[in-house]
């Protein structure tokens, strides 16, 4: 344990206090590592072991919370090791039940003041950057940091641009920001070091909505460019509690 050599010794099991176990599939993000977390969590949920109370994924791991009085660490660790050995998790298909979302999005201008900066760092014109981003279905790699907030990826390599050292004072709800080949979509107004490039008409955490958290890790999103006025109409719908994004099942 404790080594950081790429992919040596993964997947790894860690104890997290008295009621948590973490199955780590890598120490850096790759689509294969992330896919392994999604597939493995689906298998853990399907196994429905007595005593497991909750599971969740990060970019690279699966976390399990359990009742250590009903289910011992040793028993759960043994079950997890068996499940890990049962197949090559880095090569299995993504779980079923995922969705593809199409979200009306405005890029640049007042709704994305750092689009030009981000595009030039990717050595693209703003229009080409928008074209590239909007035709790439990005996977919900994980949800977290703040409720409902998706980390999305990955974008083509040219978008491997660093986070800013200083924070943007305020990016509003729906704000779409870019760094390190990923996008984040903010559920509420926030400060961020990611470059703010657009605004997407979806509420990823609607407390009173029929689906308070519409997105699930593993879903994919296409951010479809619309005009500023089309976006504002769509945003008014979002604020009225309506789902303005379309959604279809992924195979």
């Amino acid at each position, binding site marked *: 344990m*404790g080594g950081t050599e790429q992919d040596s010794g993964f997947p790894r099991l860690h104890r997290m*206090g*008295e009621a948590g176990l973490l199955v780590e599939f890598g120490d850096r993000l790759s689509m294969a590592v992330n896919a392994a977390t999604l597939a493995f969590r689906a298998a853990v949920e399907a196994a429905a072991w007595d005593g497991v109370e909750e599971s969740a994924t990060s970019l690279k791991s699966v976390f399990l919370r359990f009742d*250590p*009085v009903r289910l011992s660490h040793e028993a759960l660790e043994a079950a997890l090791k068996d499940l890990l050995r049962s197949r090559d998790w880095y090569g299995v298909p993504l779980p079923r039940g995922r969705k593809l979302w199409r979200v009306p999005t405005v890029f640049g201008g007042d709704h994305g003041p750092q689009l030009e900066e981000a595009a030039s760092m990717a050595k693209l014109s703003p229009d080409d950057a928008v074209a590239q981003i909007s035709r790439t279905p990005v996977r919900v790699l994980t*949800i*977290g940091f703040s409720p409902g907030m998706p980390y999305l990826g990955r974008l083509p390599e040219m978008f491997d641009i660093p986070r800013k050292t200083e924070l943007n004072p305020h990016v509003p709800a729906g704000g779409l920001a870019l760094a390190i080949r990923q996008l984040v979509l903010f559920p509420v107004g926030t400060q961020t070091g990611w470059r703010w490039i657009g605004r997407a008409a979806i509420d990823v*955490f609607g407390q009173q909505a029929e689906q308070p958290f519409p997105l699930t890790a593993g879903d994919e999103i296409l951010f479809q460019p619309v005009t500023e006025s089309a976006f504002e109409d769509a945003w008014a719908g979002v604020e009225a509690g309506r789902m303005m994004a379309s959604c279809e099942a992924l195979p």
Partner: protein
Amino acid sequence: MSAVLQILSAGPGLSLQDAGRPGLLSKGLSRGGAMDPLALAEGAALLRSDPGRALAIEMAGAGGTFRAEGADLLIALTGAPMTAEIDGARLHWSGSHVLPRGATLKIGGALKGSYGYLNVSGLDAAEILGARSAHISGGIGGRFQAGDRLTCRPAPDAGGMMIAADDRFSGGEIRILPSVQTDQFATDTLARLETTAFHKDARASRMGARMGHDGPGFSSDAHLAILSEIIVPGDVQVIGDGSPFVLLNECQSMGGYPRIATVISADLTKVAQAAPGSPIRFRFVTLAEALSARTSLDKYLKLLPSRVEPRVRHPGDIPDLLSYQLVSGVISAHHDPHEQET
């Protein structure tokens, strides 16, 4: 007849709290809920209500002023002891009382600890995502303000009960277990974590508490760039200035700081309730000790109703009259003779 508790004035940290919303980590929401679950259970025992549905007003550091409208209300005061009076008459903390219709309840600052609880019989609110508590950092619900009105029910009994509350308000030894990155810290750093005299930083919140100390920080030598990972209440992160930071109920769901340890569940309330500046020491324990503490706490919670007793007793029922309240004067919130000093 509707029974309402009206908030006439509110301290800065009043919110509705229950057992929180466990189970939403995959959606990015930490469990939240009362910082002192024991106080909710004590409140339920005093009010003879279902502990599984306990709901109370959590008061961080200081209370507020409240009035009963429409009916007499039954209240119970639990958690961090605060000064409390009804129309000028001092109240026993860790006790149940009738707040008469039209009377004013005034709850002042904490005398010990951080979080006091105002439990009210029949207190209810709408559920959001399966719970009625505010999750302030997650944007669910919010803090109470003057003018807020809460639905309750008329007092079902005459109160007058008390419960001997465990002292969990002054910090002390906190038992810890290893976490994900513990083995990436140098052995002497881990040893120093156990020998250092920490104090709880005054800026603690429902999200977490920084542990202040003199001397060098606790960063690991490697100080790896850690990809954000799932974090849970109890985890002890080493933040940028080298201080340990204990995550509490409303922590974020993911974080990138290395975790040196995690607090056992039975001791987390002690971290949350410690008053600002309270001494804190960490001690690594075995998993067996952590599980035994967890089981003992569960048993203690189940037996809480049996710890409730009448506050006013006939002199003949009191075995040693002189050692009772006559020596310490009237029952006051400043000195609670029934509290166990540990």
